């Protein structure tokens, strides 16, 4: 427990760690998935595995939106600027995600009009100040960002902005968890539920994990103590043979979620019949597309977008890492061809990606020690 004293509340951290050691049955091996990429980042940043007994294995889940995006979607989004002289806008995380012919950032370096924005409303403003151009917003994210895209589309419609469209890559977390639970090589014992996604959707949508699959779920905050307390709650459920949804983060996450956000999402979006997830394959009803009422602002309805299917670079093992079959450093490209400076796969791009987090905190520490 060499890092404990660096924490804000070392005494409580120590107690939680000791409680985890007490609760963990030495005869068992525990595989617990943290769904959210923010949790993955925190787990590596705070080296929380050092505070756990060796028979507790944390498996990194699919909750990093750029990581689960198939490469072809980048190429499809970029096709709009090639054919329609549009301005392509997106969040910083997407700028460095490689497509078949390079990332948006590399396209920008070659002269394409690609602009990073911090909010979908920034993209809408760009459309209003450039009425002679078309502005497409490459939208991405789980339910934390989908309401913001939806509200921006409502604004565009109310304001009558016609030179603006959205290429929706929004995904929903619940079907991905269900797909993992249905997968034949599923060996998970419990879940740490996402914190900020749950502020929007609430804790209720996770009930199926407990009711249908008899696995404990604890929705967790992001501080080291939050994550350790959530593990204590998970282990108590497992010890007692209970499977429930518990909310460790109830100071922020309401059971019912954020109703205005859910309403605006329901007005603008509908579920796609299916959507491809990197590493997980096609998952039915797992992503959001614009409703027909918003077709005038739907890049997929307005432009002939090629359905680009791109297989990942052969040597990259993003899919295996995403499914928890391989640890990041077990990928053949990790730390050599694929680094945060020159990512081959998206898991190396975002700070919420397992590979980038592992590289930044574990790989550098190990390298420094050798």
């Amino acid at each position: 427990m060499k890092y404990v004293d660096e924490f804000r509340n070392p005494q409580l951290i120590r107690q939680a760690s000791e409680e985890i050691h007490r609760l963990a049955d030495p005869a068992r091996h525990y595989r617990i998935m943290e769904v959210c990429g923010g949790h993955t980042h925190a787990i590596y940043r705070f080296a929380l595995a050092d505070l756990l007994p060796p028979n507790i294995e944390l498996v990194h889940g699919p909750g990093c939106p750029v990581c689960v995006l198939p490469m072809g979607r980048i190429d499809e989004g970029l096709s709009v600027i090639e054919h329609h002289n549009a301005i392509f806008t997106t969040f910083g995380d997407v700028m460095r995600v490689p497509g078949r012919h390079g990332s948006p950032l590399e396209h920008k370096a070659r002269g394409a009009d690609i602009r990073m924005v911090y909010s979908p409303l920034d993209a809408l403003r760009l459309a209003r100040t450039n009425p002679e151009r078309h502005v497409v917003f490459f939208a991405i994210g789980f339910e934390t960002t989908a309401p913001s895209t939806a509200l921006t589309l409502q604004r565009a419609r109310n304001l009558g902005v016609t030179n603006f469209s959205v290429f929706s890559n929004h995904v929903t977390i619940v079907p991905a968890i269900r797909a993992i639970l249905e997968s034949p090589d599923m060996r998970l014992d419990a879940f740490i539920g996402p914190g900020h996604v749950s502020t929007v959707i609430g804790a209720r949508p996770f009930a199926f994990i407990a009711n249908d699959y008899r696995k404990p779920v604890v929705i967790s905050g992001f501080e080291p103590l939050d994550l350790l307390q959530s593990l204590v709650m998970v282990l108590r459920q497992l010890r007692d043979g209970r499977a429930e949804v518990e909310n460790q983060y109830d100071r922020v996450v309401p059971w019912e979620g954020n109703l205005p956000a859910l309403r605006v999402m329901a007005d603008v979006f509908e579920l796609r019949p299916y959507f491809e997830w990197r590493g997980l394959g096609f998952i039915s009803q797992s992503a959001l597309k614009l409703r027909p009422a918003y077709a005038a602002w739907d890049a997929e309805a307005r432009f002939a977008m090629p359905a680009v299917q791109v297989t990942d670079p052969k040597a990259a093992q993003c899919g295996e890492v995403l499914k928890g079959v391989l640890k990041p450093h077990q990928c053949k490209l990790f730390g050599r061809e694929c680094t945060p400076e020159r990512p081959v796969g998206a898991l190396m791009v975002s700070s919420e990606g397992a590979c980038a987090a592992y590289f930044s905190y574990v790989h550098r520490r190990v390298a420094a020690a050798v």
Partner: protein
Amino acid sequence: MCLAIPGQIVDLHPGGHLATVDVSKVRCTINIDLLEEPPVSGEWVLIHVGFAMNRISAERAAEQLRLLAMLGEDAQAMAELDGYAFDG
């Protein structure tokens, strides 16, 4: 993108859609349409991509700011706030 930034409401703009928030002395404009009730000056909210997503206590706001610093994401969060460029 998935970690929220806390901000304190300083001023509500006419029209009811926007508010000015203060985060560690940086001021920026955010949208407040996703809150059930309009916030009042002095209240704290959690911000995602330019939108207030929920109200939080001052204590939770301080906790979230500390977390961003601990994760090394505070500079990026401030750049994001500084980068919001919408006005309607």
